């Protein structure tokens, strides 16, 4: 039972910290954020690898192989597409405006 409590504790703690951090992510980065967390959610790859840590039946091999393909497709694709997206965000020197992603409604630096 202790084991289960520990696992629950980890879930709650990380969920809380993640929640704190993510509420501060500006809207502009929400798509890359989802794309990255999507890659992270394919951490089930660990579970798929663990299936192969012992002797496996043919059926388990098929399931495990499918799990590895789907998960790793998600991991690799997710991180690559996120990087591509973020690479598109550029600033130019012509920008006269102050970038504000926080709530401060400072008037624009331009007039």
């Amino acid at each position, binding site marked *: 039972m202790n084991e289960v409590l520990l696992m629950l504790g980890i879930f709650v703690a990380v969920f809380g910290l993640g929640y704190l951090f993510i509420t501060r992510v500006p809207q502009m980065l929400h798509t890359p954020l989802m794309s990255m*967390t999507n890659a992270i959610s394919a951490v089930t790859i660990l579970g798929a690898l663990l299936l192969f840590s012992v002797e496996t039946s043919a059926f388990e091999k098929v399931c495990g192989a499918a799990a590895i393909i789907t998960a790793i497709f998600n991991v690799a694709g997710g991180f690559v597409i996120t990087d591509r997206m973020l690479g598109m965000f550029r600033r130019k020197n012509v920008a006269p405006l102050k970038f504000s992603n926080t709530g401060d409604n400072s008037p624009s630096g331009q007039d």
Partner: protein
Amino acid sequence: MVSGLLVDLLVIALLLAGVWQFRTPPGARRGNWTAAVALVVATVVVLWRHGLESVPLVVIVGLLGIGLGVWVALRATMLQIPALVAFQHGMGGAAALLVSFVELTRDATKAAITPPEVAALLGLIVGAGTFSGSLIAAGKLDRRLPQTPVSLPRHDAMLLCLALLVVAAGIVAALAKDIALLSTVLVAVVALSIAIGALFAIRIGGADMPVLISFLNATAGVAAALCGVAIGNRLLIACGATVAASGSILTHVMCRGMNRGLTSIFAGTRTSAPPAGAAPAGASHSRPEPAAPAPVSVKTSAAPTDVSSNGDPYNHAATLLREARRIIIIPGYGMALAEAQEGVVKLAEQLLEQGKSVKFAVHPVAGRMPGHMHVLLAEADVDYSLLFELKDVNHEFAETDVALVVGACDVVNPAAIERPDTPISGMPILNAHEARHVIVCNLDERPGYSGVENPLYNNPKTVLLFGDAQESVEKLCKGLSASA
């Protein structure tokens, strides 16, 4: 074992550090790779601790998966991002489902029902539901499936029945001692969950997709976490928790952006309001129908700058832009469908060069997933410091000379704040109507996804440029440079 815990904590810290860096685009780029490193370390740790049988098989399918994933990721356009992300959610769900399935059939001989076993069952259900729901969502987002919500007769009753059946089958599976019986019941659980996910998703229409995709993000995380409990792996739980947190926050942000409850969106309550054909501005017929290039509507009345009263709304609009000092551009999904974002960015740069103040006001639900519009504009090479969120820019419309609306309707519909009885009432809108002049470049005058008429179109200070947004914007650019 202590060192094991330390390594786990290190991976979790790396992961959270990745999320922490999502404040600015350059930081986010580093954060993305930080999280990637965390996953690689986690994989190495698992392999180190537990070893691997059937190495050739694992390596081959692993490389195959990586190749496919990277290939697809490199080819996708930014307009396809929501569909791709939804598809990847589905793959994550499938992986959780497969792992849970094998885990459950493996230790079928156990006497008592253990918490990991329950978690595996739940992981199976959530994973299967995420899988089918995401595939439907991806199909809709990629416009391979109809955008309009599909509501079957007794939709709710069917969902309820399926849910009860899943619970019943789950209990049978938990009690089953016989491996053959267990496998059969588990297959039934998977089939039922897949049906639930599909039924759940088909009811959601095009413009509500941002909510669905965020929700599936959260369920994919939950499925991973449950999977982690099932196999007793702390890293999986931690990663799942991060994703679940992000998915729930984004779902909340999207619901707030539409001022609608999660249940009303998922129950498809509003969908009865608009006529079946009422797709978002220009969504139903964007590319295939190259939108009558000659917009007929000329509604330019009582404008103070009567220089161009020869009736050409484009001249009039160009004059307004030329005389304006402060301009706010409001991009909507219609702009993306008309592939007008590059033109819009060019226009913005032209205006900036003339020394005007130009800002982009982006509504939270402007695209097909949270933040989608920002990515589309970034792809069109906009300077991201020009992009502003609703709450930061809305108070500035009153001092703005021209609000330029491109392919957006509902998000600037004043009916949302003026009338109490519409489907969008209470939805936060961008206050374009407060600007001195409004220029609307939409495909036609039909209402947006909500089906609510937009009174902004009848406002005397509004210049309507109906037609393909790409052409309209191009004409504006020309008009602006011709007389500059």
